[in-house]
């Protein structure tokens, strides 16, 4: 057996370190990503009556319009009905209570 064979054999016999008991964790100053809001079926029975909707994370006016009117392009109706609290239609906040005009 040559010296290289001996060295190789020595390397092969070297036991691997055991890291099976390693414990790990993490924390952050950043926020958790918003969970995707499942597409809900359109709300029925709102004809002629206004409703109140509380904004949740992931919402947009288009999404709410789609839910209530079945048409995302009707977001402007919700925007117009809530001009007092929506300055920018692209920016609504979780917890906002929006008036949803009847269909």
């Amino acid at each position: 057996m040559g010296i290289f064979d001996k060295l190789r054999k020595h390397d092969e016999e070297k036991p691997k370190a055991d890291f099976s008991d390693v414990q790990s964790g993490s924390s952050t100053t950043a926020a958790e990503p918003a969970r995707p809001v499942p597409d809900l079926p359109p709300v029925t029975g709102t004809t002629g009556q206004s409703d109140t909707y509380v904004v949740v994370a992931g919402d947009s006016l288009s999404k709410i319009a789609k839910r209530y009117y079945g048409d995302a392009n009707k977001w402007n109706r919700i925007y117009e009905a809530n001009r007092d609290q929506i300055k920018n239609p692209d920016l609504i906040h979780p917890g906002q209570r929006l008036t949803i005009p009847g269909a």
Partner: protein
Amino acid sequence: MHRQKLSLSLCVVLLVVAAGCGRKTDTGGTTGTTGTTGTTTVKVTDVKLGRAIGGDKAISDSTDKFGPNDTIYASVTTDGSAPSTTLRAKWTFEDGQTVDESSRTIAPNNRERTEFHISKPNGWPAGKYKLEVFLNDQSVETKTFEVQAR
């Protein structure tokens, strides 16, 4: 006459194109964000190792030499904002043997710090270790450190 008609047609086409460019048909904005693309503009700007962290997730006892019973902390600083981005820390020993691998998905807003830590109740084997930090599965930073026998 023919030239006049051509000019008129050209004007009409330009007006239609200009109107189309300024048109806003939908508001797809989501809560708390001004964009909807989800484009990542986040960078890892610093990775520090140490024995302890503060409440701001910054390393308070920076070192690259640890004892067998130390908890090893890595503080990853990111700059930029994104609705969702994933940081991963891969810890390896000497010849590449994986010690631990963990990830965290965050929604960073400007400068944020995320810490990863590992500990080993039975004590770390002495030797050289490596930490590799991935941002959205792309390796962005590597740090080496050593555990010294006491």
